[in-house]
């Protein structure tokens, strides 16, 4: 049986490479100074979907919600083997927290009629791991979090191994299902040369800045990446953007590394003896 898989992918700032310039004076993050990347665990989710397609047949659609720049990760998904890509973008999505994000994504996924929805466990910018379970709730389907391996997929039944933090569990359920995938699950394939050549020129309408001629041309070549806004999704505005987001930011502080009155110890036997002596005297050890 062939399966219709939808993978949710997010473009995130590379938080591993945050340097001084990436922080504004007021403690907020200067996103412009950070390279934007494909959220790492979403690559594992994509790989899992591609493996399902390889063994069972079917289709893989990648969906990203974000600014037009997120078209980059959608193209990357196409290079790696996704059949279709959708950018959900709309100024009214701004300031969405995970609840609003999952609502908006649910409107998009409903249009795609997925058998299996795959998310990364968590995105490295917010590290919340909330969007997957919230999306499953909004779709009214079963969720399985921390998936490490698909053990069996047959007809409308799936059996997976999930990491429970202190071991593992093998569970079985009926489709449709939403899986959140962890980085131990697989090694994502790299872009294939053929897919790269084929999709190199794929663009979203937003990237073409509304140039109707260009849009038409790419559409005819099958290179127009789908772009959906909230009107197209028939989203209820009360659940989107700032209005749909119960959580608000009260304050942001950049992490100031507390200077602790560091004492330098000579790397000699005497220096170390003195330090150990001090630690015994103040009852830290002994």
């Amino acid at each position, binding site marked *: 049986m062939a399966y219709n898989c939808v993978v949710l992918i997010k473009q995130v700032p590379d938080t591993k490479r945050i340097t001084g310039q990436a922080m504004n004076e007021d403690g*907020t*993050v200067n996103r412009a100074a950070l390279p934007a990347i494909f959220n790492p665990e979403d690559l594992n989710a994509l790989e899992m979907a591609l493996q399902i397609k390889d063994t069972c047949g079917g289709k893989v659609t990648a969906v990203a919600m974000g600014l037009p720049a997120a078209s980059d990760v959608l193209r990357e998904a196409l290079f790696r083997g996704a059949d279709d890509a959708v950018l959900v973008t709309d100024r009214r999505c701004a300031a969405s927290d995970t609840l609003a994000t999952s609502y908006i994504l649910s409107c998009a996924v409903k249009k795609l009629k997925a058998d299996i929805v795959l998310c990364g466990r968590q995105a490295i910018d917010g590290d919340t791991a*909330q969007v997957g379970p919230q999306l499953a709730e909004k779709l009214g389907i079963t969720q399985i979090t921390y998936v490490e391996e698909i053990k069996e997929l047959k007809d409308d039944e799936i059996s997976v191994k999930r990491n429970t933090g202190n071991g593992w569990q093998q569970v079985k*359920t009926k489709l449709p299902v939403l899986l959140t995938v962890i980085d131990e699950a697989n090694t994502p394939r790299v872009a294939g040369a053929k897919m790269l050549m084929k999709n190199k020129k794929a663009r979203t309408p937003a990237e073409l800045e509304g140039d109707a001629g260009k849009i038409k041309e790419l559409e005819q070549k099958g290179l127009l990446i789908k772009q959906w806004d909230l009107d197209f999704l028939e989203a209820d505005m009360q659940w989107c953007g700032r209005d749909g987001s119960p959580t608000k930011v009260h304050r942001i502080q950049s992490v100031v590394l507390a200077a602790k009155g560091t004492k330098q110890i000579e790397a000699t036997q005497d220096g*170390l*003896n003195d330090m150990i002596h001090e630690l015994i005297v103040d009852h830290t050890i002994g």
Partner: protein
Amino acid sequence: MIKVNKKGEVWVFAEQHRGKLEDTSLELLSRGSILAKQLGVKFAAVLLGDNNVKPLCDKLIHFGADKVYLAQHPLLEHYQTNSYNKVIYDLIHKYEPQIVLFGATPTGRDLAPRLASAVKAGLTADCTDLQIGSHEIKKTGEKYDNLLMQIRPAFGGNIIATIINYDRWPQMATVREGVMPMPEANGTRKGEIINETVHINQLDLPIEIIAEHIQAKKVNLKASRVIVAGGAGVGSKDNFKLVYDLANCLGGAPGATRAAVDLGFIDRDHQIGQTGTTVRPSLYIAVGISGAIQHQSGMSDSQKIIAINNDPDAPIFNVAHYKIVGDLNAIIPMMIKAIKEKV
């Protein structure tokens, strides 16, 4: 959607597996009871399980709960997202608590978002601190008092964000394991146990658990007074022996950075930091660790920190009380010698 109400209680989800309460739930009881006191409301634990979990109620009360809402049903024996979600969803709508807290355990992080989505409430993941405070919207001058300040690192630990929700309740948060101190039990504390009738059936269990394997953690970092943690600078799995030796002679536990784990020097159970365990020992010795923010966020609350690194500018020295610049291969043996002679 639940409206803001100042009389709502403070709740903690008392996570149990096979009749054993999770440490994180107990850690949350101390902070939860403080928050409830500040707000002048009752503090309750919510306990779900099969018909054998009742004895845990006393423990929850001894650790700080005024009340326990007890939901027992044979189908609640094993945690499942949908069944647990449904029972707590009903309880939240029945009692309208103002705050509901969960441990950021794998179970808490599976359940809380599903529940928050169903209740249409805000949820903040992985908090490292919770306080009561007020918020003012500068533009309008509107002021909200007695809100839950949900404090958490974000952007890979580079910023600390304080999140609030003031227009819809409950205020929900998951709290990281190990960031709140474990309270002392008080065996004389009394509280109320409220038995709840549970309405679930087989349809609320869409998942079948086929097999399960529990691996005891290889190390209990949170309980260790002394931790000696090694990083990529230790160089090899063999050389990690130095870390074990130093830990052993101090009666401590070996820890590691993610880089050391990824390099295969030591098992993942030993990882300290944002994606590992959060620790606050009396003494933390960091050897061959650069001090990335993701590592620091899991250890910077240690009472005393010794850092050994051959790079005098390594960021780990910013949080160290004792700075030792040099080659760990020479320094650790000298340190062991010093300890053996003195202790």
